[in-house]
């Protein structure tokens, strides 16, 4: 059993490394595909002697004097050391910008995930319990509609209604929360303001996921509710509520939780546009600004950071899933 697990982990680790390797090549090539002199394209404002500093910095970062292979090698070594290049218009290292913005996005995604599960679980249970009835229909229909609703539409709508018209919640701005100080020591937590600022964005991001998780839980629970041990419990006289929450929930939630764990990619995509609309200084907004100012080196580094994050999280969830569900290990390791 243990060797199975180890083998599984080993295979997945190898896959992880390969994927990261190819991603690094891809991002490395992105910039070199730009036509013309890279320095000219990347920092077009920097003609003239007063920008000698910026140009030199860029040349160093890109290692343009070396061979292509040499450049790639220094690029990878640099990545491993956390050198992500610079934002040439301000001279700031990209790693600093990442430190400032990543915790914002992470907190946003965590809150969204929590909110969506908090709503999805009761709704999923209800829908499964009342499968086939009008309640179930209603829940299904609304979740269907929510799934089709683009999150930028929801963001704009909430921003307009709750922020601009009703003035109940702020629609722009951010205060540091509990995670920021670990990335950037100078950020002191202002929890109250932080949470108020994060309510609308988190809810916006959560809404779409609620529908997905709800459906997953519902379908798994419908199957679980037909199992023998449930019938047995009912026969024993245990209340419905107890059955649902205590007995049926846990075995039915595996798929939902797995998907929740693997949903990082969707969350990241959603977070970017939510941050831009709600003016949160997260990675999404940084990416947006890098694209706007055609700050290619910065953009490339953000892509790398996100890819690495994403791949690593997927690996961890996969690993967790494998630990929890032995069938998977067996299925995935060739005899």
């Amino acid at each position: 059993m243990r060797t199975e697990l180890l083998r599984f982990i080993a295979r997945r680790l190898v896959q992880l490394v390969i994927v990261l390797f190819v991603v690094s090549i891809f991002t490395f090539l992105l910039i070199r595909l730009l036509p013309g002199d890279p320095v000219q394209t990347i920092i077009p404002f920097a003609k003239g002697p007063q920008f000698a500093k910026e140009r030199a910095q860029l040349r160093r970062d890109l290692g343009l004097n070396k061979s292509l292979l040499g450049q790639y090698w220094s690029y990878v070594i640099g990545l491993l050391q956390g050198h992500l290049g610079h934002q040439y218009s301000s001279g700031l290292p990209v790693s600093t910008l990442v430190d400032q913005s990543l915790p914002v996005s992470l907190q946003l995604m965590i809150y969204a995930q929590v909110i969506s599960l908090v709503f999805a679980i009761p709704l999923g249970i209800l829908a499964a319990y009342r499968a086939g009835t009008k309640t179930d229909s209603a829940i299904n229909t609304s979740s269907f509609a929510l799934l089709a609703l683009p999150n930028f539409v929801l963001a704009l709508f909430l921003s307009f209604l709750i922020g601009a018209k009703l003035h109940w919640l702020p629609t722009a701005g951010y205060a540091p929360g509990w995670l920021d100080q670990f990335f950037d020591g100078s950020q002191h937590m202002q929890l109250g303001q932080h949470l108020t600022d994060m309510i609308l964005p988190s809810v916006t991001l959560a809404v779409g996921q609620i529908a997905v998780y709800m459906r997953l839980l519902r379908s798994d629970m419908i199957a679980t509710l037909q199992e023998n041990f449930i019938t047995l419990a009912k026969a024993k006289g245990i209340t419905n509520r107890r059955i649902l929450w205590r007995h049926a929930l846990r075995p039915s939630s595996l798929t939902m939780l797995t998907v929740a764990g693997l949903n990082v990619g969707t969350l990241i995509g959603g977070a970017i546009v939510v941050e831009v609309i709600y003016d949160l200084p997260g990675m999404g907004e940084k990416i947006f600004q890098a694209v706007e100012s055609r700050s290619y080196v910065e953009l490339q580094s953000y892509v790398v950071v996100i890819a690495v994050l994403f791949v690593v999280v997927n690996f961890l969830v996969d690993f967790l899933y494998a630990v929890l569900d032995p069938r998977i290990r067996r299925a995935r390791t060739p005899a």
Partner: protein
Amino acid sequence: MPCSIPGFVVPERRPSPRGGAPGPGTGGFGGPGAPADAIRRDEADPSSLAFEGDAGLLQVDAVAAGPEGGRRRLGQGLNVTAWVAIAWMAFIVLIAVLAKTGLVTWGDPQNSIASCASKGPFAQGGSAPGHLLGCDSIGRDMIARLALGAWESLLVSVGAITVGFVIGGGLGIIAGYFGGFVDTVLSGMFNVLLSVPAIVLALALVAFLQGSPENAANSTLPDWFVLILAIGIVSIPLVGRISRASALSWSQREFVLAARAQGAKSGRIMIRELLPNVAPAMFSIALLGIAIAIVAEGTLAILGVGVRPPTPSWGNIIALDRGLLLTSPHIVFEPSILIFLTALALNYLGDVVRTRFEVRESGI
């Protein structure tokens, strides 16, 4: 030739379904919906990561209790909702084509009228007469812009999905049919493309392809083309995964094995036997994909890339006047509603198509 059975679907269903069409949703493009990166355990091929939509589950779901409109009956016509959805799509396509070809005009999408600037349909000072949906911030008629924008949005989304299906679908079938090394390589490629969240990848591709602003006059690639490429490339692994899983299961059917035994060439088998069986299911995914791509265009526009003004697209109409949300919300909400309704219609139709095929299959 052994008879190929039309209709589709992945044989396995509960408890760990795989392959098949993804459920409704708007994918990872900043829309909620089926996460395109749910890992499904693919028992047929343990050595691969099957990044599919949480399809199978929603598929189960759909069979258990489909979207609104109740259950379909085998062999019966479509219900009312489906017809409404079809009518809506026809309407949008018609408007788009009429606007682009100039056959019918409701106003000039590129003409600014000062008296109409920023006035909505319910404007306080009285709405601008003759402009039923109001105007945008510089006084261009909304109806005209939305109609022309429909063309851009549809062009980009249909084009991108076509690219995704032709390339992704083709590669997927090849991977599913040949298996082994070919499959490992292709699946690996898919994995790499999937390792960057869809929207980040699309954004980066567009930013690098569109290049520097002042080269706009000399740029060789029109905006819609760049978008089709970017969204298309991003959709390749998603479609590829699905067609691969489908091709995989069909490849193990008797008639394919028989064809092989008879010495038919691989290419012939793939085109003659696999494609007709895989394709119908993919149709459902295609409809879904178009919805996702339309939302993607909107998201990318808000993030500052994509179709550049003054050419309108549903996305860039929103993006340009997002700052006027408080005072002129109509500019943002009119295209938003159009995007939402179109995505909804396509999702619904995709669902209907899928359940049709699978119900038919299960009846065999």
